[in-house]
């Protein structure tokens, strides 16, 4: 009886250790916490991570898949983010300037109140599509580390150029922003 109890105890302990080891292996092998931004920085060809989110500029939802065939400037922002206010007019101007060439500026409002985001859009006269990601479900997949951050997606749905951290089109990143827009549209700079 004692031997049986001991063997059962050992078996349970072994199963527990194996389960923990399995979790560790799974985390190391598949737990990609870097996100698309880090893959892009390593020079890898990266497909823009998918999402399908509610729109703030009108009713309905919008997915990355629906934007295939268009050049997209994906901007992650929030109404409480101060630099986001600085870049909002630049993004609106970019949308108006390149819209006829098939460029879409897509705002992704993250960790924010819907009413605050809509107030921000009204204040800065944003007419480009904006989706709402209150839960921050896109942050990990895209590798967003702060707000604002901007990515460029070409017509085949691949990330191009470089991720811009901080407000766009300031002295520090004006070239990177223009290069990203050009690459997304398909004209190399």
């Amino acid at each position, binding site marked *: 009886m004692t031997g049986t109890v001991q063997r059962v105890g050992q078996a349970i302990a072994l199963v527990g250790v194996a389960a923990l080891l399995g979790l560790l292996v799974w985390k190391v092998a598949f737990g990609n916490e870097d996100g698309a931004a880090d893959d892009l920085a390593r020079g890898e060809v990266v497909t823009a991570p998918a999402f399908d989110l509610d729109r703030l500029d009108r009713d309905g939802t919008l997915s990355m898949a629906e934007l295939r065939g268009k050049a997209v400037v994906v901007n992650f922002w929030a109404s409480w983010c101060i630099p986001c206010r600085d870049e909002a007019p630049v993004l609106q101007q970019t949308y108006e300037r390149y819209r006829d060439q098939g460029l879409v500026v897509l705002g992704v409002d993250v960790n924010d109140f819907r009413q605050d985001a809509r107030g921000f859009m009204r204040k800065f006269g944003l007419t480009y599509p904006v989706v709402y990601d209150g*839960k*921050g479900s896109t942050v990990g997949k895209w590798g967003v580390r702060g707000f604002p951050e901007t990515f460029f997606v070409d017509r085949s749905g691949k990330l191009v150029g470089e991720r811009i951290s901080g407000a766009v089109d300031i002295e520090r990143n004006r070239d990177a922003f223009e290069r990203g827009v050009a690459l997304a549209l398909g004209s190399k700079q």
Partner: protein
Amino acid sequence: MRRLGLAVVAAVLALAATAAAAPSPADLEAELVCPTCDTTLDQSNAPVAQRMKQIIRLHIAAGWTEAEIKADLVDQFGPGVLAEPPKSGFDLLAWLLPLGLLVAGALGVGIVAWGWSRRRDTRDGDEDPPGRLDPELERRVDAELERYDA
């Protein structure tokens, strides 16, 4: 006199009901998490946390209950905004699993301890009684004692 007593009781009950319905900002800030910094609101000065605190106060002033305020924030930021997982549905596992593991651990320790104590009892039963000497040694001791007596 009786009417006055009833009125006082009614007033006290009404006050108690109002106090119970009006949530405290401090309690809510300790029970809700800032989505960008993963600490509770009372521990955070992040811009979104500041805004959440403002909204909580506005809701309280508008007469919202604690449940309504939490439901609104969960709707905006997802269930991760709650410091404690809800005690319903799949999230109930978060409460039951540690309890289950604790009970299983206690049972395991109990079974192992019982096994050990039984094994010791069995081993003790098989051994010679204490104080019993080796026959050769006993013979030598007896011989020495006889020699001493002589």
